[in-house]
C-alpha cells in the first residue's frame, strides 16, 4: 500500500493526557488511513486505551490536535465523535441486557419511525441486515441477555456500524472469544477494511495482531515508541519495542518455604456464579504469591470469595489451620484482609476523611464511643510510616492522589493485624513513585512474616515482587510456578491456556 500518497482519515498530533499524578500519554501521534487495520501495541498501562478513548470522545486530551479528513476537530463527546464517523467498541460491553438485539443496535438513534412511534418491523429488518453482514444469525427480537458474550460483542459492532462508521475502534475485542469466534471476527474486520473502514485494534495476543494488522503503533509508558507496517513487523520486533530496555526484574528475595507453615489454605473453592472452579492452593508465612491471568480469568472473583465477600458454592478457606466463616467480618477477625481492585467502587468511601477510611475496619460495639485522640495517634502513625501525603487526617480521601489513597486502604487492612494480606491490582492507576513505595511496603511486610497474595495484570509487577506465581485461565488454576520456572513465556502460555503442564 502506498500509504504516503493517501489522505489520512485521522491525524492525532502531540496528544498528552494527565490523570491526577499519572501522565497517561505524552506527545503521542497517530495516523489512520482508510481501509487499514491498525494495531496499537503496548503493555498494560502504556496508554493504549487512553489514546482510543480520546479519539472516541470519551475523554479529552490536555494537549494535542485531532484532524479528521484534514479538518481539525475538538471531540468533546462520544456522540460528537460518532457524528464524525468514529465509533468505539470498548472492552466492557455497554449493551442493555434486558432489551432486544434490534433495540440495542439502534438504541437512541435511527430507529425507523412511523406515526405511532417506532416501527419495529423495519427497525428489526435493518438490524438483521447489519447482523448478517457480521455473519450473525440470531433473531433480532431476542433479548441481548439470552445470547452468549461473543455474539453480544458482534451486536456491539453492529451498533457501531449502524452509525455511518468510517473509523472503528476495538479495545481488546478478542479477550473473551474462542479461536473459532476470533476467526469469524477477523473475517468481519477484513470485510470492513475492504469497505474502506479504518479499524483500530488493541490486543494482547501477538499472533492475532500479526495476523490481522496492516500497520502497528507501539506505545510504552505513554510515549510513542515506533510504528511499522506488515512485513517489517515480527513478534520480536514488537516485544523489543514494548519492553525495550526494561529487562524483567525478578524478585531477588531468597525466600524458601522450607520449615514455613501454611498460613492460608484454600481448598476446592468454587464460585456460585461459575467465575472459577475448584481452586486449591497454600500460602506460607512470609511468602509473596502473585496471581497472574488474563482479564476475565476469575482472579478478582477468587480473591473476593477468599475473604468472604462473595458467595461460594463449595470449598473452604483456612487460616492457620482453622476454617474461616464466609463473611468479611469473620475473615478480618481470622486475620485475612483484602485491598480490592477498584478504589472508587470497592474500597474508599469517597466522602469520608482519611481518618474514617483508615479506621473503617476497626469495630467495637455499635454504640460505643470513639476516642478521637487515640484514633488520631494511630492514623498519624500510619501516615508517617507509609509517607501518606495528606493535608491532615480529616481531609476527605478524595482529595488525595491515587497512590496515597491506596496506602490508606493498605493501612486499613494492616490495622486489623492480618496474617494474610490479599491485594487485587494493588498499583492500578498509581504513579511510578508510589508504585515503588508500595512494592517496598509489601516486601517489608513479608519479611515480618505476613503472607501476601497479590493479583496483578502487569507481568513485570508480578515478577518484581513474587516468590511464586499462580496463573489462572478461564476460572481454573493453570499453573503454580516457583521462581526458577518464572518466565514471561511460561506465564503467558499458562494464562492463555496453551500449556497443559503444571496443573497443580
Amino acid at each position: 500500500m502506498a500509504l504516503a500518497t493517501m489522505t489520512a482519515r485521522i491525524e492525532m498530533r502531540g496528544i498528552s493526557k494527565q490523570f491526577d499524578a499519572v501522565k497517561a500519554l505524552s506527545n503521542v501521534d497517530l495516523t489512520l488511513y482508510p481501509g487499514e487495520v491498525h494495531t496499537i501495541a503496548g503493555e498494560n498501562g502504556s496508554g493504549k486505551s487512553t489514546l482510543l478513548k480520546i479519539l472516541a470522545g470519551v475523554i479529552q486530551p490536555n494537549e494535542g490536535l485531532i484532524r479528521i479528513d484534514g479538518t481539525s476537530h475538538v471531540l468533546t463527546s462520544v456522540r460528537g465523535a460518532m457524528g464524525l464517523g468514529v465509533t468505539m467498541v470498548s472492552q466492557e460491553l455497554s449493551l442493555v441486557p434486558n432489551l432486544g438485539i434490534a433495540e440495542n443496535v439502534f438504541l437512541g438513534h435511527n430507529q425507523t419511525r412511523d406515526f405511532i412511534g417506532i416501527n419495529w418491523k423495519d427497525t428489526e429488518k435493518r438490524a438483521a441486515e447489519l447482523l448478517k453482514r457480521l455473519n450473525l444469525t440470531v433473531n433480532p427480537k431476542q433479548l441481548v441477555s439470552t445470547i452468549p458474550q461473543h455474539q453480544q460483542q458482534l451486536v456491539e459492532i453492529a451498533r457501531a456500524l449502524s452509525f455511518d462508521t468510517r473509523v472503528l475502534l476495538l479495545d481488546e475485542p478478542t479477550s473473551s472469544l474462542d479461536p473459532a469466534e476470533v476467526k469469524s471476527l477477523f473475517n468481519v474486520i477484513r470485510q470492513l477494511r475492504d469497505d474502506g473502514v479504518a479499524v483500530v485494534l488493541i490486543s494482547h495476543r501477538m499472533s492475532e495482531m500479526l495476523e490481522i494488522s496492516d500497520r502497528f503503533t507501539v506505545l510504552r509508558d505513554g510515549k510513542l515508541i515506533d510504528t511499522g507496517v506488515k512485513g517489517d513487523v515480527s513478534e520480536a520486533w514488537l516485544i523489543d519495542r514494548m519492553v525495550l530496555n526494561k529487562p524483567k526484574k525478578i524478585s531477588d528475595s531468597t525466600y524458601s518455604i522450607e520449615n514455613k507453615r501454611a498460613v492460608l489454605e484454600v481448598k476446592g473453592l468454587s464460585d456460585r456464579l461459575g467465575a472459577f472452579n475448584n481452586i486449591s492452593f497454600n500460602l506460607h508465612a512470609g511468602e509473596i504469591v502473585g496471581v497472574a491471568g488474563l482479564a476475565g480469568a476469575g482472579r478478582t472473583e477468587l480473591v473476593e470469595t477468599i475473604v468472604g465477600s462473595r458467595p461460594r458454592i463449595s470449598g473452604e478457606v483456612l487460616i492457620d489451620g482453622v476454617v474461616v466463616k464466609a463473611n468479611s467480618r469473620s475473615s478480618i477477625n481470622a486475620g485475612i484482609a483484602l485491598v480490592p481492585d477498584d478504589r472508587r467502587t470497592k474500597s474508599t468511601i469517597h466522602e469520608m476523611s482519611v481518618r474514617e477510611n483508615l479506621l473503617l475496619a476497626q469495630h467495637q460495639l455499635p454504640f460505643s464511643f470513639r476516642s478521637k485522640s487515640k484514633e488520631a495517634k494511630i492514623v498519624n502513625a500510619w501516615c508517617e510510616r507509609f509517607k501518606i501525603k495528606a493535608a491532615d487526617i480529616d481531609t476527605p480521601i478524595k482529595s488525595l492522589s491515587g497512590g496515597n489513597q491506596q496506602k490508606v486502604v493498605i493501612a486499613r487492612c494492616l490495622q486489623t493485624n492480618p496474617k494474610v494480606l490479599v491485594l487485587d491490582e494493588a498499583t492500578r492507576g498509581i504513579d511510578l513513585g508510589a508504585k515503588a513505595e508500595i512494592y517496598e511496603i509489601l516486601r517489608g511486610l513479608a519479611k515480618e512474616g505476613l503472607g501476601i497474595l497479590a493479583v496483578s495484570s502487569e507481568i513485570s509487577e508480578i515478577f518484581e515482587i513474587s516468590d511464586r506465581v499462580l496463573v489462572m485461565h478461564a476460572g481454573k488454576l493453570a499453573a503454580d510456578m516457583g521462581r526458577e520456572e518464572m518466565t514471561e513465556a511460561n506465564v503467558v502460555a499458562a494464562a492463555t491456556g496453551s500449556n497443559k503442564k503444571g496443573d497443580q
Partner: protein
Amino acid sequence: MSLKLPRWSSLPAWSGVLLLEVLLFIFMAISQPEFVSAGNLSNIVRSAAIPIVLGIGMTYTILTAGIDLSVGSVLAFSGILLSGMIDHMPRYAAVVVTIALVTLIVGGINGTLIGRFGLNSFVVTLGSLGIFRGISYLVTNGTTQNIDAGPLIRALGDGNVGPVPGPLLVVIVLAAISIFVLRSTFFGRDVYAVGGNEFAAQLAGIYTGRVKMNVYVISAACAGLAGVMQVGRLDSAAPTAGAGLELAVVAGVLLGGTRLSGGVGSITGTVIGVLFLQTVSNSLTIQGVSSYWQQIVTGVLLGAAVLFDRIRLELSSRAPSRKDKE
C-alpha cells in the same frame, strides 16, 4: 469580622438554607411585625417540632441511601395505639409502651425486610405506609379519638416546661443525641459508610444489614414519639393524622443538604431544612397567601436547593479528571 470569607464550596451544605432562613426572618420581621411576636415564634417552633422529629429519623435512613416513607402513617398509628392504652395504665407508662410497641412492630417489619432480606426501602416503606394507615382507619372506624392527654403528653407536644416550649426541648434533646451518635459512635460511622459505599463497608467487616435494620428501627421510634407529640398537641388521635407528611419531611431533609444517594448529610441540616419549610409556610399564612401556594413554594424551593447543591459540588470538585475515568 475578618474580611476573608471561607470559600463557599467548603461551607456546610446547609449554609445556603440557613442564610435563606435568616433573610426570610428579617424580611418578615420588617414587613409583618406580628411575625416576631412571642406567640407566633412559639407557634413556628411547635408546628416544626413534629416534622423535625420525623426528619431526624428520616436522616438516618437517607444517610444509608434508603428512605422511610411510612413515617406519616406510623405517626397516626402511634396516636391511635396511645388512645387505646391511655385509659388502662398510667399516662407515662402508656407513652413508653406506645413508643416501644411502634418501634418494635414498625421498626421490626421495615428493618427486617430491608436490612435482613435486602429488599428495596422505597417499596417496603411504601407498603408499610399503606398498612399502618389502613390499620389506623380500621380500628377507629375512621373516627377521630378524643383523648384527655394530661400534662405529660401535652408538655411533649404543645405545652411549656418552665418558660420553654416542651416540643422544643424534645427536639433539642433528640437532635443532640443524634448528632452525638452519628459523629462519635461506631454505629454513626457505619451509617455513613453504608450509604457512602456499601461494598467497601461490607468488605471492611461492617454488618451492613444490621446497620440498615437499625436505622429503620430508629426512624420508627422517632415516628412513634411524633405520634405521641401529635396527641399532646391536639388532645385527640385521628387516623388521618400526618397524611402526606412524609414527603414534606423528606423535602426538609434534602433541603438540609442530606444527599438522597446516601453517605452525606447531617442532623443539623435536617433541623434547619425542616424549620425553614415551616417558616416559609407560616410566613405565607401571615402574608395571607393561600395554602395551596405553600405546596408550590415548597416544590420550587426543593428543586432550587438540590440544584444549588449540585452547582456547589461542581465548583468544589477538582478538575474534570474525575469524570474521565469512567
